[in-house]
């Protein structure tokens, strides 16, 4: 079974803020981490490899330093990491990201299952997975919380929707995006850590993928960010202390003013 897991390196969300007055970025001590959801995607890939045999390849597109995310993925037990990196890839929106990832998946000879996280915590779009599936013309199940093989090429997937959970069956090759409920990621193993340190991480460039500049990065993107700004400041804050009955009365008063039904 060929398993590909797509991971993204992201800044730890809570550290990224704009100063409400100067609009400067407050980025003190921002760490880069593997997108938390992608760890669940990786864990699921590893579990399927243990169950069905095969290999787990971790794929990321990003600047050269994104290599660290791949090495980290290897410490959990992935077989290999591939970095897609080229100056031409910079500024990619989800369309161009998915398009580039799709070219890499093809170059790798395809996969039986591709796992993505539910969404990345920087852009919060949740679009790259489904767009990648569309470019590869394979079926997809988003928001999976449980996978069961019912044949060598068929998966039953329990997935989260707004009304609860649906059970669907999908034919491989397929792409699955996972929610955190699906598993409990393992800890890195000592052995894998040693291997990860020594591993060579192949880097694919624009020409390696057989793409042209107009298909990737900012040039290949259909969306443009035209403005970034801090969210509107919250209104007047009010902190009350006192006896519970007084506090409850204050709360009740506020609820009445809000005309809730």
């Amino acid at each position: 079974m060929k398993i590909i897991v797509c991971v993204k390196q992201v800044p730890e969300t809570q550290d990224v803020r704009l100063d409400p007055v100067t609009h400067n970025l407050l980025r003190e001590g921002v760490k880069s981490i593997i997108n938390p959801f992608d760890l669940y995607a990786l864990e699921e890939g590893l579990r399927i490899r243990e169950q069905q045999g095969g290999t787990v390849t971790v794929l990321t597109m990003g600047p050269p330093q994104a290599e660290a995310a791949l090495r980290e993925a290897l410490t959990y037990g992935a077989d290999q990491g591939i970095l897609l990196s080229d100056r031409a890839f910079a500024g990619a929106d989800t369309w161009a990201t998915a398009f580039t990832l799709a070219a890499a998946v093809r170059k790798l000879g395809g996969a039986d299952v591709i796992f993505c996280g539910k969404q990345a915590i920087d852009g919060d779009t949740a679009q790259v997975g489904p767009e990648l599936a569309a470019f590869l013309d394979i079926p997809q199940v988003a928001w999976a919380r449980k996978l069961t093989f019912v044949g060598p090429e068929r998966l039953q997937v329990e997935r989260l929707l707004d009304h609860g959970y649906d059970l669907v069956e999908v034919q491989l090759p397929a792409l699955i995006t996972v929610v955190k409920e699906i598993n409990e990621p393992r800890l890195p193993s000592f052995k894998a850590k040693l291997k990860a340190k020594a591993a060579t991480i192949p880097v694919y460039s624009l020409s390696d993928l057989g793409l042209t500049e107009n298909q990737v990065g900012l040039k290949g993107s259909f969306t443009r960010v035209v403005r970034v700004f801090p969210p509107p400041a919250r209104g007047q804050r009010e902190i009350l202390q006192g006896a519970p009955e007084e506090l409850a009365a204050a709360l009740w008063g506020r609820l009445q003013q809000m005309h809730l039904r």
Partner: protein
Amino acid sequence: MSIIIESDLCTGCGQCLEVCLFDALELVGDKVAVKDGCNLCGACVAVCEYGALSLPEDETPALSRPSHGIWIFAEQRRGRLSPVALELLGEGRRLAEALKIPLAAVLLGHQVRDLVPELMAAGADTVYLVDHPSLAQFLEEPYAAALTALARLHPPEIILAGATYVGRAFIPRVAAVLDTGLTADCTAFDIDPEKNLLLQTRPAFGGNIMATILTPRSYPQMATVRPRVMKKLPPDNGRQGNIIEIDLADLSRPFRSRFLETVSEITETVPLGEAEVIVAGGRGLQEAKQFRLLEELADLLGGAVGATRAAVDAGWISYQHQIGQTGKTVAPKLYIACGISGAAQHLVGMQSSDYIIAINQDPQAPIFQIADLGLVGNVFDILPALIQQIKANR
């Protein structure tokens, strides 16, 4: 490609380094230079007082506008419209008037024709109806195939869908195949009157930053829209519209995924994403049975119950109630946080609520930083007193 720097104009003031979201600028000597990782967001261009920075020009010629107006995806389940469909029609009407183009609803499903009048009353000039057994249950493949085929037959200028689990699962497939951009989870729209383009505003980085996005060189311009943000119109049952029923041969082919069954329904009367009021609890509640207090209050207020990851991990309430980075994102009118410290990962899921009330014993708890009204005290004293007051006053 990256930001263009006119070194002659650069004074090396370093302003742009401060605003770069991607840490992609550096000073080399006393001039700014671009490192890898430039995302061309333009934040630096806006801040440079000396005009030393600019975005590379797009040389793409303007496309002609497609003639089929604005479409909204009319999400439904089991013959009931999702509230976001009506909200999208309300917002769609406003945009359609500004652009002077028609507004249509796209209704996909099986035996759903009964919903057409409701869509017209809510603002649709046209309803495109695709009624097919393959669309009886939501699956990404047939839904994407249907919307893609429709958009090729009658090209629209804009497509909006709810940023629900359904919308966010299949709309990206449509955008990919139609070779166009897609903006996720928008909270505001505007029209650029010169270019007649849709300005799409959305939170990023967990709501810490807002971004406005354009789709300048392709049609349709596509976006998913956060539920409960846009306003629906009062239904006007006198409104007339036309219905265009379309038979898509493509839907009769076999699909590679199929629906088996609904495993569990969320039994709450009010789903979290649609609730106007959310009463949420954290580790401060100490045990599962204390969540009954929250349920009682939520019931009285017509709301739903939410929780932090700590409470979910402790097994006091199910994951479906988890709010935050690894749970749901909500934006109710009122959010009451009980025994919640206000960890960043929780805040990103609820900080766009209209009004936030926090109850916490610890006056230093970070939740008070974002609360509109903070009550320093014990949940187990305050909530019962509040519940009593509400009951006494009804």
